[in-house]
């Protein structure tokens, strides 16, 4: 399940930081998280949306956001493509489609992913996927690194760039404080056309499918958010391909945490194996050095011995030569003396 997986990845990260804790789960397991059972969601039927901006006004009011530059009754605003900002948790955009007469509208806000990229990316766990379905943000721990904004595939979180010291990340909370009290989210409550339906995600999926089945000509046969990025707690119906109302169809169905779990899983392996490998390399280079030194010593010894032997041999030879020379000299001298003695003897005799 997502939370246990996330926890597991947390442990893996902790192991990377030096304190490994065991776990029986596997990052690349065969488990598939389909949301907390009984969690809530909102179904946005864009076919029914008329672009009245009442949801925007209500959102602004219940979240006590600053007043907009132009009033919510000004529908001229719709002519420009907008996105969520630090002062606006939700916006309605207008789209034209070749296949349809008249404009189309779509409301944009946090999709409250089942396995949120922002929560996975946050290094202080400022985001939580709550059991009711809302993804909430805690500004009391936020460092303001904005990795959540980088990570979000829907480009939802905004940042208070003009706050010098206390900037917050701002995004729709699915009216978490209201829904936990049993109230409807502000936007849903304000919608006059029932383009927004709040309820249990399982039920909303059934409703969405029923509408598609009942009016196959009116709807594209796809519930956006059922599986996009692993599934979201906002679901969408459309009468035209979703890309024509500014929704990306190339996001895939992989939940964001799965995109990084492999890299995180390598961390403890590196921590465990690198020291072994590096110590081995060190030992090899040390041993090479030692052997080289030994060989050098032996070579020196050998060379010294050779020189010594040669010198000794030379000395012995010289000595022997000296001996023979001496002997010869003695012999010569004796011979000479004998000859001389014989000579003098002969002289005396004669």
């Amino acid at each position: 399940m997502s939370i246990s997986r996330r926890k597991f990845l947390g442990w893996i990260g902790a192991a990377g930081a030096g304190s490994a804790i065991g776990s029986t789960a596997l990052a690349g397991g065969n488990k598939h998280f389909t949301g907390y059972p009984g969690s809530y969601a909102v179904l946005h039927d864009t076919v029914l949306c008329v672009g009245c901006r009442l949801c925007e006004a209500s959102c602004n009011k219940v979240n006590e956001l600053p007043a907009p530059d132009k009033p919510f009754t000004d529908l001229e605003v719709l002519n420009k493509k907008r996105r969520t900002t630090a002062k606006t948790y939700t916006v309605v955009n207008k789209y034209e489609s070749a296949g349809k007469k008249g404009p189309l509208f779509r409301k944009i806000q946090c999709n409250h992913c089942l396995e949120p990229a922002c929560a996975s990316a946050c290094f202080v766990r400022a985001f939580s996927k709550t059991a009711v379905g809302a993804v909430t943000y805690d500004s009391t721990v936020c460092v303001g690194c904005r990795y959540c904004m980088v990570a979000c595939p829907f480009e939802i979180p905004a940042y208070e760039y003009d706050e010098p010291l206390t900037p917050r990340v701002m995004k729709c909370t699915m009216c978490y404080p209201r829904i936990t009290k049993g109230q409807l989210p502000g936007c849903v409550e304000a919608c006059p056309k029932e383009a927004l339906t709040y309820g249990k995600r399982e039920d909303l999926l059934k409703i969405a499918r029923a509408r598609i089945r009942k009016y196959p000509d009116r709807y594209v046969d796809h519930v956006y958010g059922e599986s996009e990025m692993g599934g979201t707690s906002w679901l969408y119906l459309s009468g035209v391909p979703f890309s024509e109302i500014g929704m990306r169809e190339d996001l895939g169905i992989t939940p964001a945490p799965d995109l990084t779990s492999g890299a995180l899983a390598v961390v403890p392996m590196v921590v465990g194996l690198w020291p072994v490998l590096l110590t081995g390399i060190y030992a090899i280079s040390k041993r090479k050095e030692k052997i080289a030194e030994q060989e050098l010593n032996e070579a020196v010894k050998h060379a010294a011995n050779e020189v010594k032997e040669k010198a000794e041999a030379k000395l012995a030879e010289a000595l022997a030569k000296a001996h023979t020379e001496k002997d010869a000299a003695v012999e010569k001298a004796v011979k000479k003396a004998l000859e001389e003695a014989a000579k003098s003897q002969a002289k005396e005799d004669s």
Partner: protein
Amino acid sequence: MSDKATTADKTLFTPFNVVAGFIIIIGTVITILRFTGGLAAVTNLSDNNPWGLWIGFDLLVGVALAAGGFVTSAAVYLFGMKKYHSAVRPAVLTGFLGYALVVFALHYDVGRPWRLPYPFIMQSGTTSLLFEVGACVALYLTVLFLEFMPAPLEWLGLKRIRELAVKLTLVLTIFGVVLSTLHQSSLGALFLIVPSKLHPLWYSPYLPVYFFISSIIAGLSMVIFESTLSHHYFVDKMDGTHLSENEGVTLGFAKAASFVLAGYFIIKIIGISFADNWYLLGTSYGIWFLVEILGFVALPSFLYAVGVRDKNLKLIKWTSLLAVLGIILNRLNVSLIAFNWHLPSSERYFPHWMEIAISVFIVTIGIVVFRFIVTRMPIFYEHPEYKDNH
């Protein structure tokens, strides 16, 4: 920066001091603007472009270019290449300053800089690659600090603590390589979560491997590049050993860099094949990608090889600059140029001049501190009292 940094300089108004002083004054003014007016006052960051030059250059490029410390100390202390010993201290110093400045630069970029320790003391988001980056950078900065300690301790004449610091060398080196492997790769892995925002030619499941391998190239090339500059400006600080070993260091590191670049080129090609992205090479982003891997990966690999074969030090030195530029280009491509490629040009990011000024300011601080240290501490020479002591 044209003076020779000799102690004989009488006047404070050397060209180096004037330029550096001017940059530091501008940097200080922008610092005040940043912390009174918020990021909006000095940057072009937006909700669609939450990361700009301060992450793309100061963090990603800064960390990559500071890889010389771990590469050189690993070569000398683990792989037993003792003939490069004189290159260790300058490389460790550059690495230490590099990481210190990365952390310093982050204080400008994050919203509440005093909360930077929060991931470790308040609540840990261990599913985040950024947590891993933060933890490893914090630990590695400590490791580099300890690795660098022998130099100031010799300078200060604290023999016994120095002995202790020197004894830690092997453990610190192993620790440094482990931490560098982790955070260099994690910086690439930061972008694994955005397959929908990063152009497919740069997005790859191999991003962590690419970042790690290219950091080795960055480390090797920076050692060559930095020693070229140091030889120009601090040659009077270098002892006979340093000067006589330098040619060997340049040739050896160039040879290694040529090989690693070749390997990096091959794994980049494997990445394209793996994702079957060949058809994208004909697009404008594809041509830009080819400029990167042919002009800044394949070309320096070739030029390094030629330089080593011909013992052409001049060619090697220029090639090191080319390789360093290649790393800068790659990091900016991943974080800024190929990031958010799906957005219309009106929603794309281009840095504000004040963002560039802060980056220049931070690099200048690095150069000033580097200069302060090498003109005082035994970096390019062995302290006479500790000769043959390693």
